[in-house]
């Protein structure tokens, strides 16, 4: 992702030739003309790619530049040497190990609970009877419209009353119920072929078995989508961890960045970038390998005003 050469518009190899269309003119003649027709489009595409890659490139290089090369003008595009000093220094300035641990715990536990609760609730809303079920479903979806910022204050007070300020439970609990995940999974469950469930019922399978051995195995892509979106949301969450934790050792990574940023305007950019890289890298990798699920999940999540 951070490799700028990937933007190079590599034309697909011999598309016309590969298509095997006997009527098509020989490959080498056709392609240049298509390219010439679209040269401005390609230029634009490269420019757009650069606008979004350059900040990431700056992040990557600055994190490993020596101070001498960061604080120099004109700007050095290619560092002449790479150093790990910034990373090491980040660890000295703030308990980065603790930040990483906290982020991992909150993300792993929070996302897992979120997915599990959503699966059970989705199954209930899809297949189990209940008086007033429709009404409950609407009430659940209505939660998507409650703006997150309006709930911060009261949730903080609630967690205070429960004695959960500055604890993992306090970090995790308020975000665990997911109306959107439940909705998405319910829609998916309802789309599954009903014959399978009828067969399972005839076989005497109870609801728990129907869920675990029939519904879930057929829903892996949908569950993966919900899980990935949950992981991204938990990892990147900012305002709630900022409020609910108050000791350095309970902070998560995004909040931890604030400890690397000095308030007197004399920020040590190399160190700050090294910390930022640690925040960004895991989600970049997740995105790289699961792009398709994440895009459907996040665009879908916005469909419910989920964020």
């Amino acid at each position, binding site marked *: 992702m951070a490799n700028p050469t990937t933007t190079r518009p590599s034309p697909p190899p011999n598309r016309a030739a590969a298509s095997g269309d006997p009527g098509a003119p020989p490959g080498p003649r056709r392609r240049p003309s298509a390219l010439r027709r679209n040269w401005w489009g390609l230029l634009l595409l490269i420019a757009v790619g650069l606008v979004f890659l350059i900040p990431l490139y700056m992040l990557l290089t600055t994190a490993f530049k020596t101070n001498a090369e960061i604080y120099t003008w004109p700007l050095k595009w290619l560092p002449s040497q790479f150093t790990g000093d910034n990373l090491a220094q980040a660890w000295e300035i703030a308990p980065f190990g603790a930040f990483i641990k906290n982020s991992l715990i909150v993300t792993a536990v929070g996302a897992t609970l979120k997915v599990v609760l959503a699966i059970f609730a989705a199954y209930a809303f899809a297949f189990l009877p209940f*008086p007033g079920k429709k009404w409950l479903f609407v009430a659940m979806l209505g939660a998507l419209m409650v703006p997150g910022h309006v709930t911060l*204050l009261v949730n*903080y007070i609630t967690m205070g009353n429960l004695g959960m300020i500055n604890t993992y439970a306090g970090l995790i609990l308020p975000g665990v119920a997911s109306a959107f995940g439940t909705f998405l999974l319910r829609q998916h469950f309802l789309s599954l072929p009903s014959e399978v469930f009828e067969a399972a019922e005839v076989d005497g399978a109870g609801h728990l078995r129907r869920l675990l051995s029939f519904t879930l195995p057929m829903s892996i892509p949908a569950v993966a989508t919900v899980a990935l979106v949950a992981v991204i949301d938990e990892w990147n969450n900012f305002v709630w961890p900022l409020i609910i934790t108050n000791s350095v050792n309970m902070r998560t990574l995004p909040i931890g960045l604030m400890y690397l940023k000095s308030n007197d305007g004399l920020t040590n950019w190399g160190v700050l*970038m090294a910390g*930022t890289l640690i925040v960004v890298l895991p989600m970049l990798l997740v995105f790289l390998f699961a792009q398709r699920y994440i895009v459907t999940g996040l665009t879908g999540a916005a469909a419910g005003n989920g964020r």
Partner: protein
Amino acid sequence: MSVELETTTSTVRGAAPPPADRAAAQRKRRRRGYALFAAFAFPNLALIAVFAYWPIIANLYLSLTNWDFISPEPLFIGLTNYTSLLASPSFHKVLWVSLVWVVVVVGISLVLGVLLAALFSKKLPGTSVVTGIVFTPHVVSGAAIAVVWLFIFDPNYGLARVLFNLVGADSPNWTTDADWALPALLIVSIWKGVGFVAIVYLAGIQGLPSDVLEAARLDGAGPVQVFLRVILPLLSPTTFFLVITQTIAAFQAFDIIAIMTDGGPASSTTTLSWFIYEQAFMRSNVGYSAAAGTVMFVILMVITALQFRFVEKKVHY
């Protein structure tokens, strides 16, 4: 907890009961279904009730009180918080900054997003890679993005200085100059969000009926005409959806402000969401913050209500 209920269900297994008992069996099964529903859905519903619905009610009450988190009881003071908010010039400024933020970010993201989508829909070589790159900022932490851009805006060593030097000017002190701070944050916000808009528009464009576009082209419409007269109107449901969701997101922008400016300099970047946070958690003005929260709630509810009105009418021209 549900396992126990499960084993009882399986006793109904297989055998067809005599017709007389069938109704009774069905009732029994139904009741078991109720119990299971409660067990399966309860955690989710309870958490939503406690952390999404209760806050609205409690916030409304807190907004009528004066409290600092510490004194034992919130003191009821009626509508005083609201009247002083509405009379306060600094709150007017907060509303103004929020309005500018929302209009600029949503407006520019939508225009750039639809243009990007039009570019991506041409399926040039390399498009899928660039689409992925443009969407990336949506996936990574807003706080991290804010840090990177803070460096880009550094007047001495930042990338933005390159552009200013190109035209022979000095870079401004972006984040510490009251005139430049808001534009800086708006740029970051647009940069972060435009990829999402582009992807939603791209999906919309790919879903358009191809025969209509074909017909327009056969009628002799140029690409710009097709885009403006055919594609854009057909995309109006997508546009409407994006206006609503992006507006709600823009109203709640927070991490960029927290990292880059803390609402300053001179409150020039204090939006409604920063104001709510600042009043409660930096100044312990609980009631005042709650009243500002109600203002945000009302604004967003009105926007959401509009959404439902329009969606029913199906925005199509």
